[in-house]
């Protein structure tokens, strides 16, 4: 089947598929809003939904009479965390979609290019070795350290993978990512075991599995900005991504400037991932599985795949984070554990249904 035919067929399906996607989208937006309100209501200190709504109303200047304690917990502690989770989930899912298309690799996820490994190098340097600059707080240092580590790994991967002609072949990029990731993992294990105190291994492991604990408004707003910018930016590339999904020659035959687009998207997604990982640690599964799930539901067209994946990712992470902080009273479970436990069965069911079709 020729590419032109395939894309015409995809467009032909748009009439019915489009309607389905739009209604699914509306449903997901509603689900996201409900999830946010419910997520804010759940936690160690029980707060009824009516109080949550009252706090939100009061914050938007609509009156209301809530106690300072409720306001502190709902608006200052939980709301930024829940919104931060939504933003992170949306961005991770988007990055996953882009990378899977760009590398034509079903296993591609946001941490493909050694980014989580690089971020871990930075995080461990701060957590275990206590690297610090001036009067910066330990938490700020951790964010900065992981961001710089992620950037370092990205630069190393790009240097390794770029050809003489400035091209960036996907296979070589992925392999370079694996190599850099391994080097980073070796450093992380070495430092943790050799100079870690008894608590260090626990903290490093917790960081590796991701957490949104302690997310306040300043960080949450930054994550939301990253997610919004990423969403708007990738929408400009939907047709390019469709073309990439069919292969490089198809892309170039459709007049996509293959090299330039690939550079922009690879570095762009890597920067997004680096910013996310700096605040939340590496949260697995979302970026890998959400794109597949949504593709099974609405097909491969990126015009639908991107926004719907972002919504599904946001909802998944809001609930995963709510579970992470409330399943065991007072204690935090790493969110990566929850995303895997929540996401894997859903994925398995969808795969089975797909197979039996």
């Amino acid at each position: 089947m020729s590419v032109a035919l395939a894309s015409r067929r995809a467009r032909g399906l748009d009439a019915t598929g489009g309607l389905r996607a739009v209604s699914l989208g509306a449903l997901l937006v509603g689900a996201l809003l409900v999830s946010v309100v419910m997520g804010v209501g759940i936690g160690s200190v029980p707060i009824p939904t009516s109080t949550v709504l009252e706090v939100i109303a009061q914050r938007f200047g609509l009156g209301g009479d809530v106690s300072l304690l409720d306001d502190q917990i709902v608006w200052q502690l939980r709301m930024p965390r829940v919104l931060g989770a939504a933003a992170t989930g949306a961005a991770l899912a988007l990055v996953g979609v882009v990378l899977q298309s760009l590398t034509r690799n079903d296993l591609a996820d946001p941490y493909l290019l050694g980014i989580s490994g690089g971020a871990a190098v930075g995080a461990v340097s701060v957590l275990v070795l206590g690297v610090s600059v001036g009067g910066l707080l330990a938490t700020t240092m951790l964010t900065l350290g992981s961001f710089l580590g992620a950037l370092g790994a990205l630069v190393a991967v790009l240097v390794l993978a770029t050809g003489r002609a400035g091209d960036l072949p996907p296979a070589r990029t992925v392999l370079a990512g694996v190599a850099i990731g391994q080097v980073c993992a070796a450093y992380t294990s070495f430092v943790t075991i050799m100079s870690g105190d008894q608590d260090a291994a626990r903290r490093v492991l917790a960081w590796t599995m991701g957490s949104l604990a302690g997310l306040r408004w300043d960080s949450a707003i930054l994550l939301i900005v990253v997610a919004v910018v990423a969403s708007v930016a990738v929408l400009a590339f939907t047709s390019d991504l469709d073309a990439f999904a069919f292969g490089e020659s198809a892309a170039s035959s459709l007049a996509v400037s293959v090299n330039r687009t690939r550079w922009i998207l690879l570095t762009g997604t890597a920067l997004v991932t680096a910013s996310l990982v700096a605040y939340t640690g590496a949260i697995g599964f979302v970026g890998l599985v959400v794109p597949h799930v949504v593709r099974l539901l609405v097909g491969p067209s990126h015009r639908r795949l991107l926004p719907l994946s972002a919504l599904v990712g946001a909802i998944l992470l809001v609930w995963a984070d709510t579970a992470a902080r409330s399943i065991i009273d007072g204690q935090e479970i790493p969110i990566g554990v929850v995303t895997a436990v929540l996401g894997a069965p859903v994925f398995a069911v969808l795969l089975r249904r797909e197979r039996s079709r």
Partner: protein
Amino acid sequence: MMRISRPLATLASFSLLTALTACAGAPSEEKASSPTDGYPVEVTTCGFTSTLDARPTRAITMNQGATEVALALGVEDQLAGTGYIDDAVPAKWKEAYDSVPVLSEQYPDHETVINAKPDFVYGSYISAYDDEAAGSQEQLEKLGIASMTSLFGCGDGDAKPEGGTTFETVWDEVDLVAKAFGVPERADAIRTAQEETLAGLKAEKPGAGIDVFWYDSGDRTPYVGTGEGGPQLILDAVGATNVFADIPHGWTDVAWEKVIAADPDVIVLADASWSTAKEKIAHLKNDPVLSKMRAVKADAFVALPFSETTPGVRLADGAVNVGGQLEKLSR
């Protein structure tokens, strides 16, 4: 930085004095006795029994807690080496500590241990006998090396000792170690001194009516002192209320919102090399939400070395320390 009220100070110096005289006076009398007098001695901890046939002269202590019990008993001349100190031993034992070789920053490995030709090995945690550390107790026994673990270190962090986490168990361990080293009367001196210290605190109740949040470490989620560990023993000793007393275990993670809802009067901070009191105060004061807590606004902080907060021979010092600082705050 720390000022202790007069009665407390007298109490503290008195207990220190008794401990010191007990340590300084004893050895000359013992030297006369034969090294096998009173032996064999059997020590059973964490389900493992070792038999010492003679007074150990080349013992190894691992972890800060075990090392400090040995130093408190004044048996440094019977030590061949120490390993794995968390921060620093207190000034009163520094000279004694420095007189013993440090075998390793962390756990000495099996070969290092054997190379030191020990006759007795004493570790705070069961992990001291991992294959990567000193090697299993059975393995050591085959080489004729006796060994024991702290009564508080049988499992991972949360495993409770048989007698419960109490001062009584601390003293039982000191008794056991003193027996192993052949200096049982020094354990009695420590027990008596600490009992007097605690009785003094109980009479004075410097923490009466004060709600305390015990902040051990962590920033995104605080790791707090709960109902069954060293922190609780200290707070009980000074008569203060732990806001998380009803949570089991010695320490656990708790959500910040619970801390805010508890609205404590005073925050006690463990000062550890990996999480200093200064860092924790900076975190509390810089966080937009936590900085609004009453205790943070009022600078109602109490700081003490982490090694005074784990169940062990320095826990009573920790109680005196906290008591003195609470008294100063409430003035």
